[in-house]
């Protein structure tokens, strides 16, 4: 057999019916993650046709997008922001109950952002196909899964048939050579990569990240990389499983145990791309050029090093983006005013992200006039952080320590900034209005966000930690 890539192996193993010139493949889905925002219309469609969920045990629900993050002793008791959002939460509770789907409800200690809890509970496993009505489903690719976002109609297809009709995407190998420098985060690497590929450079393709720098990353860092694949327009991003992957998964509730674990690892070892596997495209990045990064515009491809300057360009789209941001060509990014700081989202809300932010904030104060929100990715991350005392560092610095959820990444739950304000955010999108109408988002790594909170200005975190 000719050498095959990680992606081709997973794709082939899930073809119920292979694609032909006339028809797409029928692709089997191992795990379907669902949340409150993109599912109500899909369940309504099933109900209208009298259909049942085909495999409830392959479906896992959580509440994250529109749920409150205000600190609380009993999360189940907090009112959801408005009656419409509350109705959406109630709809998922009702639908999950009616179809026998496990739902991590508001009061559940395992609840959290959908792309944080899947891996945390050991439900995300190498070799799987995973989908969710959310574009950041690419996160799960960090475990050597084929994971991608789908629309609500497709959510209905998976609920009813556990399958999707899909054309096979093309493949792109992104090789990252070298090691990340001190004070340079996985987030900086992926922002630099999107800057290089552009926001549509990955369109129609599944990216496999590989090379020395990728192999050296922790699982949480790999999730940050795969998470933002969609910001380069890619269908999915993935990394071959290795010892780091197995060490993360072993002993987790949803992972196989005993002999089943041994068999699973043996199977997973065969997933890596074969030597000589062909890709439709190949890109090489060198870590030597990656520094702490920050975005200056209105898409995640508009990034420069924190110590760098906004490019000098004159085309209309570029100038329009800068006008929204209140910036001009050629201006240095360091020293730009900051009104709010958000540490959280499925990109950067895991324990290592919170540690990175806390390390910069320890024994320091958030600048006067700056509001900082720290929103853990799950209730488990929250407990783990509190166990280490990270929450005390955040609150002593004057930051707000919140309950888990998507929060300011999408701003659906009322966590937003005021028009015209600048937010340094560890999330994934700096689109116009993403964090509130007229709000200007600057994407960065957790350490850079924490540094901005302390100085009230865009700051290279290495200046504070050296």
């Amino acid at each position: 057999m000719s050498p095959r890539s990680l992606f081709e192996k997973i794709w082939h193993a899930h073809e119920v019916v292979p694609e032909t010139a006339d028809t797409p493949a029928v692709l089997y889905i191992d795990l379907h993650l669902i949340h409150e925002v993109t599912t109500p219309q899909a369940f309504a469609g099933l109900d209208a046709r009298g259909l049942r969920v085909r495999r409830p045990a392959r479906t896992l629900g959580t509440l994250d997008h529109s749920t409150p993050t205000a600190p609380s002793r009993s999360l189940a008791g907090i009112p959801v922001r408005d009656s419409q959002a509350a109705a959406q939460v109630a709809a998922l509770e009702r639908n999950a109950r009616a179809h026998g789907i496990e739902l991590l409800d508001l009061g559940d200690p395992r609840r959290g952002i959908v792309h944080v809890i899947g891996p945390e509970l050991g439900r995300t496993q190498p070799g799987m196909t995973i989908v969710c009505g959310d574009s950041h489903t690419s996160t799960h690719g960090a475990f050597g899964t084929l994971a991608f976002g789908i629309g609500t109609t497709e959510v209905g297809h998976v609920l009813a048939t556990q399958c999707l009709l899909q054309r096979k995407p093309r493949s792109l190998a992104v090789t990252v050579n070298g090691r990340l420098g001190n004070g340079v985060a996985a987030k900086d690497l992926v922002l630099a990569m999107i800057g290089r590929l552009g926001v549509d450079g990955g369109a129609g393709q599944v990216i496999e990240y590989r090379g020395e720098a990728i192999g050296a990353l922790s699982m949480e860092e790999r999730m940050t990389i795969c998470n933002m694949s969609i910001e380069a327009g890619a269908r999915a991003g993935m990394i071959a499983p290795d010892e780091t992957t197995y060490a993360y998964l072993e002993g987790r509730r949803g992972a196989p145990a005993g002999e089943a674990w041994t068999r699973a690892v043996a199977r997973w070892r065969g997933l890596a791309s074969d030597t000589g596997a062909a890709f439709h495209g190949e890109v090489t990045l060198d870590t030597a050029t990656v520094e702490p990064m920050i975005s200056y515009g209105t898409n995640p491809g508009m990034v420069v090093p924190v110590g760098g300057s906004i490019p000098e360009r004159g085309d209309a789209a570029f100038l329009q983006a800068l006008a929204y941001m209140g910036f001009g060509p050629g201006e240095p990014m360091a020293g730009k005013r900051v009104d709010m700081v958000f540490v959280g989202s499925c990109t950067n809300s895991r324990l290592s992200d919170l540690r990175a932010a806390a390390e910069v904030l320890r024994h320091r104060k958030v600048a006067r006039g700056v509001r900082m929100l720290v929103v853990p990715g799950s209730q488990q991350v929250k407990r783990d952080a509190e166990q280490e005392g990270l929450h005390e560092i955040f609150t002593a610095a004057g930051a707000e320590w919140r309950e888990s959820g998507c929060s300011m990444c999408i701003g659906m739950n009322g966590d937003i900034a005021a028009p015209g304000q600048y937010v340094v955010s560890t999330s994934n999108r700096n689109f116009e209005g993403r964090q509130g109408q007229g709000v200007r988002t600057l994407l960065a790594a957790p350490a850079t966000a924490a540094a901005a909170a302390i100085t009230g200005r865009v700051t290279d975190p290495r200046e504070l930690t050296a």
Partner: protein
Amino acid sequence: MSTPIRIVRSRIVVLPARDVDTDQIIPARFLTTTERDGFGGALFADWRFDAAGQPRPEFALNRPAAQGAQILVAGPNFGCGSSREHAAWALRDFGFRAVVSSSFADIFRSNALKNGLLPVQVDAPILDWLNANPGVEVTIDLEARELGLPDGSSVVFPIEPFARYRLLHGIDELDFLLARSGAIEAFERSRVE
């Protein structure tokens, strides 16, 4: 069974910006509903309306010539960002039946095709010409896969063959999948350890 689509003939509305993301098409604050309908009023909300909720007269969709237009012409990488199908629902609910661009984001294209909204992909020179000629009438012939221009010429556009067949005949994708239940069951049985 949905309504078959064959021809869309309409004046064009032009939005030349590239990388129009789904947060612009339908901002997240409108996503808390459990319905599929009624998103048209929120289409491009923050570009169409000012902070006081008044229409911005300079925005393309607010110009008198745009009223009743069924074809939107937009810059490259249209529909990037979030997977929200609400973007396709909002465009459809507003009255659009096709979007013409030189490229589309993957998830948006898939969502559009599932909602009778045709993503018509053309080369950059054709897109540039359309962008420079707002208000002209064009014809999209799905059967022939042709975009007909005002001078009588036409260009062929690519479209996934199954999606085209489905739209031409009003076939529902879920019905097609359900008809493969036997194969799905056999697949599930074959994978049991």
